[in-house]
């Protein structure tokens, strides 16, 4: 049945590449999650991808993500067991078994977290997420835009620690409470967010984003194999726009309120020679200026790709001298609604700019 199909090992490889691009600079590298998946597949696991439309309205769906500092993840690595534990703890709390599992954010390593859990728990992975990219804050989801309930939440670490946040007064409080626990267990934890019904997923999630990430990765790999330009291939396949091509001249970073903020300045190459581009980021790329004028803002996806390999470049790995291309990809429509822009538009990131999509869709 096409609605519940096995995912091949090669598709997980593509997913890692595509998810890192959709991370728009944040979300953390999917590399360690990918290594876990390779191992699970070698041991015989085969994950199944579920068409969200196949969900019954009452089917409970687990929404998972890894929480914490990417740098801590580089030392503690990532492990499928805590995310599975967070899910089973939520099942125990709810007194119901989940029908399927899905990702909170398709951008970065969190795209692969539900697959890790699925391999251990034998649950299908829903072809959807609630960001369509990566975002830095808990309320920047399609579920929050639709005012869905933000609790309960379960959090588990690699020891035998686990916490349930039974209620929270707001998204902000949920973030504060869970962040505190996360820091206490070493700034890395697996979480199972507020469970969703099949109806909520079908109506409020960003659908088919897993397939989109896999397709993106396939596009990059196919271009590399054919010695074509992977950046151009991505732009063409995803109806994106090449905004700039150049070399990184300067990177400034600072941490404020727990976010990695900063700017990167680029000097143009090829058809952009003589022109300049500047990027501002808060974990993810938020705004881009061409020759000093705003060119692109969130929620349009601002992706920085290595100009040769097409591989995504994260805000933590930007460095002087890199030759990169800035590509815009269309954002999911829900993020472009007036309510959506309140949550994820330029003003939500502190930029006094009206959102004007590079794809010509005018926002609020």
């Amino acid at each position, binding site marked *: 049945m096409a609605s519940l199909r096995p995912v091949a090992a090669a598709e997980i490889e593509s997913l890692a590449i595509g998810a890192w691009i959709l991370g728009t600079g944040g979300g953390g590298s999917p590399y360690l999650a990918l290594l876990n998946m390779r191992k699970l597949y070698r041991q015989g696991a085969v994950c199944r991808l579920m068409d969200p439309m196949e969900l019954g309205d009452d089917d409970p769906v687990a929404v998972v993500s890894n929480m914490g500092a*990417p*740098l801590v993840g*580089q030392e*503690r690595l990532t492990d*499928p067991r805590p995310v599975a534990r967070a899910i089973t703890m939520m099942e125990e709390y709810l007194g119901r078994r989940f029908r399927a599992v899905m990702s909170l954010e398709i951008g970065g390593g969190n795209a692969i977290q539900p697959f890790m859990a699925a391999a251990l728990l034998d649950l299908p992975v829903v072809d959807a997420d609630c960001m369509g990219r990566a975002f830095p804050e808990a309320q920047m989801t399609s579920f929050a835009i639709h005012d869905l309930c933000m609790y309960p939440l379960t959090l588990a670490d690699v020891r035998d620690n686990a916490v349930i946040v039974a209620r929270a007064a707001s998204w902000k409080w949920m973030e504060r409470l869970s962040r505190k626990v996360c*820091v206490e267990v070493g*700034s890395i934890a697996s979480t199972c967010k507020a469970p969703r019904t099949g109806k909520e997923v079908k109506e409020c999630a960003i659908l088919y984003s897993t397939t989109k990430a896999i397709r993106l990765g396939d596009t990059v790999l196919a271009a590399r194999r054919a010695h074509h330009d992977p950046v151009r291939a991505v732009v063409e396949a995803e109806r994106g726009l090449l905004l700039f091509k150049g070399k990184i001249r300067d990177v400034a*970073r600072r941490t404020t309120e727990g976010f990695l903020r900063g700017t990167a300045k680029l000097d143009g190459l090829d058809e952009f020679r003589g022109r300049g581009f500047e990027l501002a980021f808060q974990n993810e790329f938020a705004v881009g200026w061409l020759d000093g004028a705003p060119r692109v803002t969130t929620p349009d996806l601002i992706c920085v790709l290595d100009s040769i390999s097409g591989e995504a470049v994260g805000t933590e790995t930007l460095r002087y001298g890199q030759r990169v291309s800035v590509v815009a990809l269309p954002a999911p429509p829900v993020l472009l609604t007036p309510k959506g822009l309140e949550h994820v538009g330029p003003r939500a990131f502190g930029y006094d700019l009206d959102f004007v999509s590079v794809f010509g869709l005018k926002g609020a």
Partner: protein
Amino acid sequence: MRSQAAPRSGHPRSVAASRPPLQRIGIDVGGTNTDAVLLEDARVVHAVKTPTTPDVTTGVATALRALLDEARAAARRNRRSEKRQEERSRVVPRLRPPVERGGLADPAPIDAVMIGTTHFTNAVVQRRDLTRVAAIRIGLPAAASLEPFVDWPEDLAAMVRGEIVMLEGGHEYDGRPIAPLDAAGIRAAARRIRQAGLTSIGIASVFSPLNASCEDEAAAILAEECPDAAVTRSHQLGRIGLLERENATLLNAALVDLARRTTRAFTDALAASGIRAPVYLTQNDGTVMLAPVAEMFPVYSFASGPTNSMRGAAFLSKLADALVVDVGGTTTDIGSLRHGFPREANNVVEIGGVRTLFRMPDLLSLGLGGGSLVRQAPLGVGPVSVGYRLTERSRVFGGDDLTATDVAVAAGLIDLGDKKRVASLPAALVRDALARIHATIGEGVDRMKTDARDEPLIAVGGGCFLVPERIAGVSKVVHVEHQAVANAVGAAIAQVSGEVDQIFQNLSRDEAIARARGLAEAQAVRAGADPRTLTLVEVEDLPLAYLPGNSLRVRVRVVGEIGAAADAGRRGRPRLTR
């Protein structure tokens, strides 16, 4: 100790009247040639090029013999000219002070010998001379699902993977233990390792760059239980990123036997040549370690070849910020110098298919060199090359292959071999092939440039005549004397470094950098640097998202001139003996 302060620069001390000039030998053991140079302070006095031999030692000994023969011949010439000058000085006032040190019959004693080699990289890439190792990972229950060697190419892992041991211990980012160290588990593992006959061990503990106590404690237990085993601890190699740091540790452990044998070969070759100066091995970052230390860290020598060539180019041209194009027989390496050091690649570097986070120069390698074959219809140059057989296979040397060198001779760019043998080449072919070569180099230079302003470019290497005189974005193309042995010169001038990459909390940015600098300086002095010559060459700070307490990751690197060790060598009166 010397009394005068040394200049704080990337160049060696200037000649001071109160002491004899510093005599340093630099040797580069490449895949094709072994080059050696003798530096007297900042002056290249002799240079030789000899073929590399399979056993390394013979080639190094041959190069040294040739170098010292030249030095002795020069000393004899000097003595004669000094005599003549003394005779003249009886009647006219002396124009320059006499050479101070006695023993004019002998060349001056050597203060230090610096060797650069690509031997260890080649061993990994070619999958040879590797030792089977035991891997000990400390950090359970964290980092449990991805075991050591997890992302190695299977052929290499099969050669290197011995025991795998994963135990409780390790630290959090804030210094708290993840779990108490399982010392009993380490002791039991040590016995298994000894019984398995493994003699090299790599240890990696979670967050060991911040707190090395678990690795140190484990090493102490291993020293008791496996006294003959070589132990590499991951915090000695570096940075945050467990898997990459552990990979470096395991590669290092796989190479220590080869490194020990190779270093001994070097020291034997020097002893046979009568040199008793301290021996240093050059590292990826253009600095050196004393051979007995370096043989414990072969991975640090992985990229020393191209680094030495770029450092040599900086030294010979007296330019600290420039592009460098090194044209060899088969490849052209293009890099960028900043403050006299190669700009480093900051991303993941793969060695023989293994991900590591090494300090490596950011290089662009093109398949173009003096031995590159020139094809006609359609026109093409490289990447296939006659390599070291240039002197038998190229046209100007009597062969049948048309190479880039033949084209350059036909175009009058250089006079090599028998130019009559290329006189009949069609002018259009010569022009088009040269245009192709120039365009390839020009495009490569543009890709490596990171400054919009025009920059100078230094052309080095045996094939540097292929570099065009005018390149877009380049202010001038600089050619230097001794360009063919720039790599050996780079080895000779290498300095000692100290580096710290650590997370600091609850400190201002300035305080954190000052703290890191202090740690890096102490490390450099331990490695043999003269504390008076230490300079800061790199500072990088990265605030960490999510971590509390104003966390800042600071990376600081300092370098200094070779100090105490070289002085100690001088006190021991090392002389060239015969």
